[in-house]
């Protein structure tokens, strides 16, 4: 019966691929496709992008100045004042909108600062190990030993109350989060075969660090950065609420909440709108961060 079996060629010649038809499945393209399929990532990014647009276009969205007072004190929402007015007769809608600028500003700079400093320290600790690792890890431990908001309060109390000091405090308390993440990621990437291969090729440490280790470490940092953005917004609002962050008449959401405390029964809108703004921003960044985490999770890949 074996007489009828066709001989199978041992190697099949590969069909030639013309360069025009070759589609490069870059990791970035894969990412975009997975992102658009992920519902909460899309919703989160829509919220985040809307706030970003509001922050950029603030002067075009409202016709009031955020410091402009009027005779209309604590007015309920109306056609003239969409979100009502506060105890000084300022338009609340305008203040919430300008507040977006402050919150995103604080989030962006504080988190970028933490990422840069934290990643660099984590990279050094993870790659070189030894006394550098011991020293850096202990610093992280010390920073993490304090409840973060308490540490932020202490830093602002020491430096003086202002928005920029609050920003600095938020950046400092978030350093160990990124540092530890980076360190653990570097440790696992460092033991990969392609790093050994890079050494066997004769590459210098610096090249291995920045061309091979770092590009394979940044995804969890990006996820944590997005989630950390939400935390930073809350922390900024908390410091503002305690009077340690932005100072009046800056339209910071936390500060606005603090001012509104006395009028919560008389004029609940003074509290509701800044509160909703904080909640929505945090929700947006959390949804986006969770979505990114799912997308980057290697177990999700087929």
């Amino acid at each position, binding site marked *: 019966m074996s007489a009828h079996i066709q001989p199978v060629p041992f190697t099949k010649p590969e069909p030639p691929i013309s360069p025009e038809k070759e589609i490069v499945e870059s990791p970035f393209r894969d990412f975009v496709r997975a992102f658009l399929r992920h519902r909460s990532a899309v919703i989160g990014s829509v919220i985040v992008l809307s706030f970003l647009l509001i922050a950029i276009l603030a002067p075009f969205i409202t016709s009031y100045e955020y410091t402009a007072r009027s005779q209309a004190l604590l007015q309920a929402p109306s056609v003239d004042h969409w979100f009502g007015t506060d105890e000084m007769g300022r338009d609340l809608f305008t203040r919430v909108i300008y507040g977006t600028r402050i919150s995103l500003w604080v989030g962006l700079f504080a988190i970028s600062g933490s990422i840069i400093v934290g990643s660099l320290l984590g990279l050094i600790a993870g790659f070189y190990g030894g006394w550098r690792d011991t020293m850096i890890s202990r610093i992280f431990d010390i920073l993490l030993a304090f409840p973060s908001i308490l540490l932020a309060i202490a830093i602002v109390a020491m430096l003086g109350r202002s928005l920029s000091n609050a920003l600095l405090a938020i950046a400092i308390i978030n350093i160990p989060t990124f540092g530890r993440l980076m360190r653990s990621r570097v440790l696992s990437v460092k033991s990969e075969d392609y790093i050994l291969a890079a050494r066997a090729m*004769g590459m210098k440490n610096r090249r291995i660090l920045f061309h091979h280790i770092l590009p394979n470490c940044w995804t969890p940092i990006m996820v944590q950065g997005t989630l950390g953005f939400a935390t930073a917004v809350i922390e900024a609002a908390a410091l503002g609420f305690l009077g340690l962050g932005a100072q009046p008449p800056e339209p910071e959401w936390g500060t606005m909440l603090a001012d509104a405390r006395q009028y919560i029964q008389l004029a609940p809108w003074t509290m509701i709108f800044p509160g909703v703004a904080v909640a929505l921003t945090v929700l947006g960044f959390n949804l986006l961060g969770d979505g990114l985490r799912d997308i980057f999770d290697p177990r999700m890949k087929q």
Partner: protein
Amino acid sequence: MLLQVHNLRKTFPIRGGLLGKKTGEITAVDDVSFYVKKGETLGLVGESGCGKSTTGRAILRLHEPTSGQIEFEGKSLLALSEEEMRKARRDLQMVFQDPFASLNPRQKVMDILEEPLIVHGMGNGKERKEQVQELLHLVGLNQSHAMRYPHQFSGGQRQRIGIARALSTKPKLIVADEPVSALDVSIQSQVLNLMADLQEKFELTYLFIAHDLSVVKHISDRVGVMYLGRLVELADRDELYERPLHPYTQALLSAVPVPDPDFQKQRIILSGDVPSPANPPKGCAFHPRCPHVMDICKEVRPEFADQGGGHFSACHL
């Protein structure tokens, strides 16, 4: 003589306790000596954990040897400074076992193959690009594959990329650490034939590490057998496969399957397990399992000596 290894030893510390104090030592490679001639393939076989991969990596100083001598083209590799060693790596390349782990997933094939050239300052941008195309052609890949990422290739294709990378700096010695053991059997022969073709074309010298005796027989000129960090036998391929001297080699060879259902063969079944390399037996490392064990084996470590005609063996028999 391209490479000479004398009394190579590599130990790894065992650390324990709160402060990471050294509580013991694992001897991964123990007093291994051999040489590799220019243009030949030396196969290194042994069970997993016998130190064959560590030997390969110690020679390239990817694991710094604990003691011993490594001479490459008459120059001691261990005497080189870190920077000199880095430059010397141009002549000493490596092919890895796992083609899925040994390529950086974030680099395109073009960058993977071009990088060694950049690192060693070979050629300008245009020349390097041309050379990458040539390398792809040499290992049987399509030129348009240069813009792809590693995850878009099969295991066999990835290993071809790994071989092309090792070849890019025109090295003299390639340490191939189980280059085909992660591949399908049908792909294994293709990759082995490719390696043999390239050897002929570029007069390459291979140190070929494997655990598959038939693979080693196919590609090697000479074969060394390792057991528990020690080289127990080394001889020309045909000599070793037909006239094994060491009882361990005899047992190993008797386990090779023969593709004939009627063939009745005498298998030598070893009892017990490989002893822990943290606490190797006194005398000959193989004596607790050896069918021919004598009193002297338990006390005196046999010398790895030439038994005539370049057939080395470490046995009191």
